[in-house]
């Protein structure tokens, strides 16, 4: 059950041009910084990236956008990234925008063997185009399909050699559902411990969903909007 790999470079082995990746995080919170760096270094291109956001110009997925490694983004919100907007409006980058709740649920469905489900979100909007509409309890819903990925890359706070993960604060976000939906799931963690050190009752992502794990280094954990109150 030992799933430990050395580092980000080793973790992303097997990711090749044209693959579909899921990357956890909300904004810059809870993103797999080490694996993103390794992907930039490796130069893999034509990637389809499923991630709630696209980072900022010089951090997170923005780094892969800068290098033109991403062919298509599947996200719910892509503001706060000028390069993204430029590539999108110019048509260089394909973009599939999905309601955030549908994105989360579609990832979970992909991991849970639910090929499709009905949701009210997006009915009557361009999101519903080409999708089946059905009424339940007098309310129209659209049929959304599961999402899966060749690799899911998530970031956790603590993890053990078996791949059990615990997240911290709102850095949890999409990470647990994406961990479920990867054909291969890579977890980078701030602290890697031995099996038995994490309380079984407090594990957010059971190790069964994780195939590779490593302790990341040099986390910047950049804050997008530093909002504070003065103590005076």
């Amino acid at each position: 059950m030992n799933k430990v790999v050395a580092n980000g470079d080793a973790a992303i082995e097997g990711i090749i041009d044209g693959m579909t990746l899921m990357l956890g995080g909300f904004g810059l919170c809870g993103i797999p910084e080490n694996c993103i760096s390794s992907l930039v270094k490796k130069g893999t291109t034509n990637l389809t990236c499923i991630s709630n956001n696209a980072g900022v110009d010089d951090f997170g997925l923005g780094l892969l956008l800068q290098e033109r490694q991403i062919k298509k983004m599947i996200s719910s919100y892509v503001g706060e990234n000028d390069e993204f907007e430029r590539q999108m409006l110019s048509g260089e980058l394909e973009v599939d925008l999905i309601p955030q709740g549908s994105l989360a649920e579609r990832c979970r469905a992909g991991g849970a063997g639910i090929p499709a489900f009905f949701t009210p979100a997006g009915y009557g909007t361009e999101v519903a185009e080409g999708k089946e509409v059905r009424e339940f309890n007098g309310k129209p819903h659209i049929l959304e399909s599961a999402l899966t990925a060749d690799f899911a890359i998530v970031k956790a706070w603590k993890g053990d050699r078996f791949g059990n993960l615990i997240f911290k604060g709102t850095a949890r976000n999409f990470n647990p559902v994406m961990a479920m939906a990867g054909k291969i799931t890579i977890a980078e963690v701030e602290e890697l411990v031995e099996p038995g050190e994490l309380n079984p009752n407090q594990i957010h992502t059971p190790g069964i969903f994780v195939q590779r794990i490593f302790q990341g280094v040099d986390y910047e954990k950049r804050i997008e909007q530093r909002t504070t109150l003065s103590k005076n």
Partner: protein
Amino acid sequence: MLDKVGIAKRIAQELQDGWYVNLGIGIPTLVANYIPQGINVEFQSENGLLGMGPFPYDGEEDADLINAGKQTVTLLPGASLFDSATSFAMIRGQHVQLTVLGAMEVAENGDIANWKIPGRMVKGMGGAMDLVASAENIIVAMMHTNKKGESKILSKCTLPLTGVGCVKKVVTNLAVLEIINGTFHLIERAPGVSVEEIQNATEGTLVVEGEIPEMQLD
């Protein structure tokens, strides 16, 4: 006429004790600052947090604790953290009693547009489509007109929709409007604003019945 804070204060009057509330980015966020005395509400942030508190003190901010606007926040006692699927289970499952969000346009049939300007701005819908499609109780916080003075309270939305027939109440810098049977109904005027001013700023059908009271703020 109200400023953004005024709009937030007026919306805060709608809060009821024990409600779970989701506040969108912008004006809605300000509502948290004006909770009426004696009312306890909990704020849900769709990135995975219930029981959101105020911004942290300088130097105490935590990169792993942000709200849906990516701002650093704190947790109040009784808070809980969860993943995005669980967060939207709360929203879609109608466990959140009130959703407050901004809009570019609202139409008299309850349609709302707030996520895209074709060819120009594409930020994405984030959680807005889930919120408007699911919430029983939606209040839109917005300016009555755009920078050119054109009405954003319309007979029909011109921008790509976020949701259809879902808005029931709108609080603007000029008025409180309710949508009933496909028309806007004027409920309250902002301090110092006349019914005529509101009528002139409203492109959609506006029903004015009887004396329209002025908002009572503070």
